């Protein structure tokens, strides 16, 4: 019973926050709107990372590759297509890349998969650079900048979609299969689950949202080149944010990434020279004292409860 009222309260809280978010541009300064846009970007990246890596335990560092591909697709297309199509195509480009890469590499386990995804970012970034130098003859490109409110609402829509997708996957037959794969891949395969297909599809779905958010963020930057588009930091941030928040339910990564992104924004503006140092220190403290993230603090008393739901990962 207590658990249920808690859940309802949490849900009500999120509805209020959601309404505040929708109305944000009407009461906040445009600086605030951009600030929240940045936070939402991290939240989306973290949520989409958790879709795949949360249940399966495969640690992917390819986030920057999919994000960057979205950025580039959008930079190439902007001006020639309407915004929703640009975002959609940006997402689809990353979806396809993830599908191909996933089919080739998801037979790798553990460290090998992680290293490959890490290398993928460098590979694609360098390929984009090579292409620009040798084919187009110019490095980087200018993008038609859009109004920050339009960008904000686009990000908000992507956020709602990734939230919906996470929820649907988690509460479907598909989500159950993912959990099974994460806990015993061999047993899952022998229980009739097409392990490869489930893994590759989920990897691609998570990449779709990373690409879509990249496609939106392009419009804010006005100029993109490979190092900014394929920023390796974006591969690590979602992972750290997910660890910080916890991955047991949908809310934890959202809360984790919001706080984390907020801290990052504050630290970069207040302490531009020390922020990485402060950040590293904070991360160490989190890992030492909160191994299960923020989620772990709230759930400890309930963990012994034998009736526990199957959702906890």
């Amino acid at each position, binding site marked *: 019973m207590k658990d249920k009222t808690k859940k309802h309260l949490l849900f009500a809280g999120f509805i209020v926050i959601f309404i505040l978010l929708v109305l944000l541009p009407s009461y906040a300064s445009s600086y605030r709107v951009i600030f929240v846009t940045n936070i939402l970007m991290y939240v989306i990246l973290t949520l989409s990372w958790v879709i795949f890596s949360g249940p399966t335990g495969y640690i992917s560092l390819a986030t920057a590759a999919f994000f960057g591909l979205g950025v580039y697709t959008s930079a190439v297309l902007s001006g020639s297509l309407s915004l929703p199509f640009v975002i959609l195509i940006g997402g689809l480009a990353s979806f396809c890349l993830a599908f191909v890469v996933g089919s080739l590499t998801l037979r790798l386990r553990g460290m090998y998969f992680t290293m490959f995804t890490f290398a993928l970012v460098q590979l694609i970034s360098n390929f984009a650079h090579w292409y620009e130098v040798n084919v187009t003859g110019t490095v980087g490109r200018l993008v038609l900048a859009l109004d920050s409110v339009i960008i904000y609402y686009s990000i908000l829509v992507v956020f709602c979609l990734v939230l919906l997708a996470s929820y649907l996957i988690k509460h479907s037959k598909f989500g159950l299969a993912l*959990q*099974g794969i994460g806990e*015993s891949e061999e047993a899952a*395969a022998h229980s009739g689950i*097409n392990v490869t297909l489930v893994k590759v599809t989920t990897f691609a779905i998570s990449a779709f949202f990373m690409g879509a958010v990249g496609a939106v963020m392009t419009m804010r930057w006005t100029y993109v080149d490979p190092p900014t588009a394929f920023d390796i930091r974006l591969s690590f941030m979602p992972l750290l944010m997910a660890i910080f928040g916890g991955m047991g339910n949908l809310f934890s990564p959202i809360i984790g990434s919001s706080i984390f992104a907020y801290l990052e924004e504050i630290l970069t503006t207040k302490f531009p020279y020390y922020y990485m140092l402060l950040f590293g220190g904070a991360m160490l403290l989190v890992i030492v004292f909160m191994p299960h993230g923020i989620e772990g603090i709230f759930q400890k008393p309930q963990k012994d409860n*034998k009736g526990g739901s*199957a959702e906890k990962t």
Partner: protein
Amino acid sequence: MKILEVQGLKKNFGGLAATSDVDLHIEQGEIVGLIGPNGAGKTTLFNLISGSITPDAGIILFKGKKISGLKPYRICRAGIARTFQSVQIFPKMSVFNHVVIGLLFGDHRHTTSISTNEEASQIIEFVGLSGMNELRAADLTLANQKRLEVARALATRPELLLLDEVMAGLNPTEVAEAMELVRKIRDKGITVIMIEHVMKAIMAICDRVIVLHHGEKLAEGKPEEITQNKSVIEVYLGDSTCLPSET
């Protein structure tokens, strides 16, 4: 009718022949015991049949159709389910969801969620885990984890069930219960092949026993014939105290 036929099956691991030239067949509705000393290739044979590994040579036919080379999930959906020597459960998943996975993925005919819930409960009751639906698999005793593996396997609606040492590590009461369960499974019309070191169980419930040694088939026959077989006694039952006094 032959439900499973294995012809000239070979598998090498490096220089070691884990399975060499094994021919065997399983009749529908039998309980077949697969015995042999450690390293005889029993589990390898299960891995080959269930698709975990692919044979270097030879062919496996299930109901007359070739299944060797298929992916494990295909073989499972075709109607062969298995359990594992070292229990392979989903530790953090509820008992109920284990069975649901089997029902939803192992059996293509499955559609509605209402019938899924009902069938899952029936299977859980059948293996003797009723009342434990919501428990996490990691919190079960070893005996119950083994039952859970059987439940998940049964949920895929197999026609052939491969049991890999379901009785290892169980106490005498649990062994008796497990024997009863295997009989009940056969009575449902499911053919069973079981790897087992608990000889009492093998002798009591198997219709036929196949003995493997160094990856080769050493002997096969009725349990009482196997206990009289000279070469089997030499390699496997060598110590006469292992022989069952009755039967």
